[in-house]
Each structure stands twice: as C-alpha cells, then as structure tokens.
C-alpha cells in the first residue's frame, strides 16, 4: 500500500522529522485559504498522486503571491498528470498539498528499503538529491552510500555518522541528520514500511534540514497491525478492477492486451502470459485465482475480465493439485452459467482427476474450445483473438 506525500509527512512530523509547514487541500478555495494561513511570501502547490516525477509533469509549482497559488491550484486540480511512473494514461489529480516555500542550499537523497540480498533494512544516502535515484544508481553508483542495519542492534549512530560524512554534508548539520536517520528508521519499523524515502532532504540557506518530499510504502501483509494506517488507503489511486479482485480474494493486474487469462497460482499465471506473447498474442491481465479456484472466485474472475473493454477471448489455465479438476470444472461450468460470457473461451485443465473434469466440461452446455497443453491453449487463444 502506498501513502500520499502529505500522509507520509504527517507521520514524519510525528517522529520529530522536520517537514515544511503545509496542509492537504481538495479544492482551489481550500488551497487559497491554506496558503493565507501560512505566513511568508512563497508557497509550493503540489499534486498528490501515487507516482514520482510530478515536478517534470507540471504537478509541482512555486507561487509568490496568493493569486498565483489560486491559478496554480486551478491548473493542477483535475489535471491528468503523466509522469514516468503513472504509465501513458496518467492520473487525475484530486488532492493538493500547499506548503511554505523552502530556501534550498543543498539537496540530498535518503532512502530505507528492505534489501533481499542481505535480508536487512538498508539505508541509502546520496549527495544527488532531487533526482531519480534509479538513474543515479545506473549512471553514477559511486555516489550512493549504503548501510545495512542489523535488526538486532538497530541503526548504529557511528555508522550513520560515517555515511553522513561520506556524502559531503557540512559538519554543522551532521548531528541533525544522524538524528533524522535514526527517526526515519523508527518510522520504517513502527509503520511496517517496505520503503521510506526522503528525496530531497534539503539543507536550507539558514542551515536547517527539511524533508521536502516524502514517500512511504507499507507492507500489505502487516496492515492488520495498523488499522489507523489502513484507513489512509486512497482507492481512487487504484484500478477499480484490481480493487474488486482483491475483495474477491483474487490477484489481478490489468495489462494492455486482449487475451484475458484466468490461472491458478502466480508463477503459472505469469508463465501463461509469457506463452501467449511467445505465440504472438498479448495478455489483457495477470489473474491468479488462488489454489482453490472456487465457483465464487471463478465467477468473480470472469466478471472482472469482462469489464476490461479490450478483452476478445478468455483463456483458462488450471493445474489442479489438491483441488481436484472435477471440482474446478464444475465451478467453471457454474460460473459460466452465472456470467454471460459471449466471448470465445479456451479451457485447459490438467492435474488431479483431469479426465472427470474434462468430461464435466464436455457434458455441460457451455461453449468452449478445449486445449490439452499450455502450448495448445495459447495458440487457440491467440487465433481466436485475431478473428
């Protein structure tokens, strides 16, 4: 689960991490009022969407008068913001963050992530703040310092201090940054985060440090421990089909193609997408119906796929293990009755009691193309999609 910048900053503030003064706004009038309430003569109007690269797309603008705040807020609210992380369709901006402007002397990158290799939380710090850290990692990896944090010992202040010195920060802010890193690690642990990123961390002209941007991703598996954080979920940021799928206990991801896939198991689902592509087709989705593949789940899966307007054919690929193929076949027949499919349906069943399962499908009144292997299924689906 992802948080908005303003939500993340509220958490940082609660952990004594300095962030610019500001407030989230949902209308132009609220934005104007928020700017008036902040003293000063420089404000930043920031689009709140779950994607990086907002500045380049025109979603972050600086204003030096209240009128300018009004015009920026009008321009950004409701705009379709396209960044390298939103995909080509972009995202409509429904929320703003109005903040007091900060006088920037220096920009740094600070991030905490779970590193799979070392199986620890790793601190990443770089003098190259304010830019995409992934491009720094590719072009100039020497500019990123990392520190593996021992979960037993916590973040060592000495090791953190060494990192801070290595990224070329003036000594006057060393103490403050070391304290910030320790607080940031607290945020990471107490929220069950998978990513906490401050980019940029700014050293101001008067020598203070401020987290000017903030990003927090949370571990979905740990949300039961954090009902207060679960409430921060912004469903408007998510694909409605993906939300419906989650509620039905399915794993679903929308893709660009026209062959809907219904598969049990994540690995087999990915492999099914791959074999479709290999035979010249394009999958419309990733869909893991789970090991059980009950009638309810299969029905829900059919309904979700049919909402995807470009789907021309549906490919069902089930390897029945503990859940027998006859049970699954009965479920597919029942689901096909409940949902008016009206599209070519290719079904490949394999595994426990497969003969019985195939017989149930053959005896049913549903119209479908039977397939024996994954290859056969993919070829039939690709051919049907071309018709």
């Amino acid at each position: 689960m992802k948080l908005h910048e303003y939500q993340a900053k509220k958490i940082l503030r609660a952990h004594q991490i300095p962030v610019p003064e500001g407030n989230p706004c949902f209308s132009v009038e609220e934005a104007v009022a928020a700017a008036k309430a902040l003293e000063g003569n420089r404000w930043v109007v920031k689009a709140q969407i779950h994607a990086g690269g907002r500045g380049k797309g025109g979603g972050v603008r600086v204003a030096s008068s209240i009128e300018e705040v009004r015009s920026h807020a009008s321009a950004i609210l409701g705009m379709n913001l396209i960044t390298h992380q939103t995909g080509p369709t972009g995202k409509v901006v429904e929320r703003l963050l109005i903040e007091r402007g900060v006088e920037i002397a220096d920009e740094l990158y600070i991030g905490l992530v779970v590193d799979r290799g070392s199986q620890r939380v790793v601190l990443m710090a770089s003098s190259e703040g304010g830019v995409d850290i992934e491009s720094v990692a590719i072009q100039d990896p020497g500019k990123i310092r990392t520190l593996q944090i021992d979960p037993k010992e916590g973040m060592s202040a000495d090791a953190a201090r060494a990192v801070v010195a290595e990224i070329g920060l003036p000594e006057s802010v060393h103490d403050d940054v070391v304290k910030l890193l320790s607080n940031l690690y607290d945020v990471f642990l107490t929220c069950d985060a998978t990513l906490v990123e401050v980019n940029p961390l700014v050293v101001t002209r008067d020598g203070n440090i401020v987290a000017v941007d903030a990003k927090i991703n949370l571990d979905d598996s740990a949300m039961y421990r954090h009902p207060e954080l679960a409430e921060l979920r912004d469903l408007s940021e998510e694909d409605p089909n993906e939300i419906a799928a989650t509620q039905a206990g399915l794993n679903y991801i929308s893709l660009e193609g026209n062959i809907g896939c219904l598969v049990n198991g994540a690995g087999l689902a990915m492999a099914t997408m791959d074999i479709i592509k290999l035979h010249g087709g394009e999958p419309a989705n990733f869909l893991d119906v789970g090991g059980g593949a009950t009638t309810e789940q299969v029905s829900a899966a059919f309904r979700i796929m049919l909402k995807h307007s470009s789907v021309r054919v549906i490919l069902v690929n089930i390897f029945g293990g503990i859940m027998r193929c006859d049970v699954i076949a009965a479920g597919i027949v029942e689901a096909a009755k409940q949902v008016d499919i009206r599209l070519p349906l290719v079904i490949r069943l394999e595994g426990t009691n497969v003969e019985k399962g195939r017989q149930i499908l053959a005896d049913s009144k549903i119209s479908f193309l039977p397939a024996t292997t994954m290859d056969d299924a993919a070829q039939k689906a690709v051919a049907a999609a071309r018709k």
Partner: protein
Amino acid sequence: MSILIDRTSRVVTQGITGKTGQFHTRMCFEYAAGRDCFVAGVTPGKGGQSVENIPIFDSVIEARDKKGCNVSVIYVPPRFAAAAIDEAVDAELDLVICITEGIPVRDMVSTRRRMVGKKTILVGPNCPGVITPDVLKIGIMPGYIHRQGSIGVVSRSGTLTYEVVDQLTKLGLGQSTCVGIGGDPINGLKHRDVMAHFNEDPATEAVVMCGEIGGTDEEDCAKWIEQHMSKPVVAFIAGVTAPAGKRMGHAGAIIAGGKGAASEKIAALKAAGVHVTQNPAEIGALTKQVLG
C-alpha cells in the same frame, strides 16, 4: 538418495490442529513412507491430544525430545508464523519448511537475523514444500504427479512447479527431490543453495530451475553455476511479459528499482551455460533433449 529429506526424516507439523495443517498432514502421512516419518504435531495448549493418531505436543522442543523430530513443517497463520520458525530454530531442528503465505516482512527480517549462526535450514515461507518422490512428501503438492528419478527441481512457485513435474513425469523423467523455495522477498534457501545441494547429490543427474521476476537470486545462482556446477541445468524464468512496478501475485515477484527483469535473469543464466527455454510448455522436452 535425495536432498534435504529422506525416509529417516522425523517430521513435526506446527499448526496441526488448523484446517490446512490437519488436511495436508493426513495427505503427507498417506504418501509413501509418510506414516513412518510424520510422528508429531504442535499446537500450544493442545498437548496430549492427537490428530489422525499423531500425538500433539505443546512445544517443538517437547516433540523433538519425545519423538526425535528433526524436521518441521509450518501451517500456522501468518501473524504467528515467524515465531513458529523461531521456535523450530531454537529447538535446533535440521530443517524447517514454512508453507504459510503473507508473513510480514519485518517479522521475516528479524527471524532470518536470529537464524544467523544456527544450524537450522529454512525452506520458504510461502512455498509448496519439499518432496522426494515415492519416499516422503512434506508440503501441499499433489503427490501422484511425481515419480522417483534423477531430475532435481527447484522453483519459486507452486502450480508452475506441478506443471513442470507433470511434463517430466509424462516424458519418463522422474525426480530426485523437488524443492519449492517460495515467492517471498525474504526467505530461506535460495536457488543457489538448492543448486549446491543437487550438485552434491549422486542421485541427481540434472536440475530444472523455475525462476521468476523480482530480486537477483537467479543471477546469483547463474554465477554459482558458472563456477561450480558439474551437472546440466535447464531453466525457465516466468514474467517476461510482466510490467515494471506491478507485483505479480507473489510478494517477491516485482520489477523494482531497475532490478528483477526476466531478460537480465535469462541473459545471466545463458551466459553461465544453462539451457534456457522461453516456452513453459517445453521445459520437460528440453530436459529430455539435454540428457540425450
């Protein structure tokens, strides 16, 4: 011969009184030498009871002391599963196989830290388990698709592994041991570790590995193969078509931070001399061809 498990293994099921634990323990008990190997269950507070004539104990240590258990399989719910692994590690078992899906990452980071310097090997979590065909099945895979033989199988996914095993069996290629290492980002044995076990196992002639997008385990394994592997390896990497930034079902299956794409894994494996197919329907046939 086999790796990790054989007929001398003595298994305790943690979470044996739950629906899943009870069902799968029965299936495993009924498979091959299962009735000799599945000797205990653990559910705190239910010691003294039994499931399918398998005695239940309050703790893993008690099960170890009274029944000689050296392997544990875990079905307990996600919020208690990391603590269950810790308990098995503290009881100094040889092997822990964790089936549970959805354990919080923070819990696994701290559990893996506790395991440093301990003798216990972890397989999983979020995995189908380990099977040595016609000898012992520990996990949720359908036993009947397997045949005893000389192909080692290692995979991050469940049903894709069944697909591969089914292809192998139908072509007359039995398996030495099949290991599901799981789809989570923080886990126990990696491809590389299992590959090393197979390399040492005289009963294994060749290895099939199924990787997927996310992380760099397959690349690490490729490096290891290049330097140490003396047996042929066939590989398939799932997720060539997966878009970046989207989690494909498994918590670990995501292309993020510029890492984890299938193309890089395939290139690394090919460079290490691994036989890679891009067609998941041809994994069995390629294995047969490689063996000649």
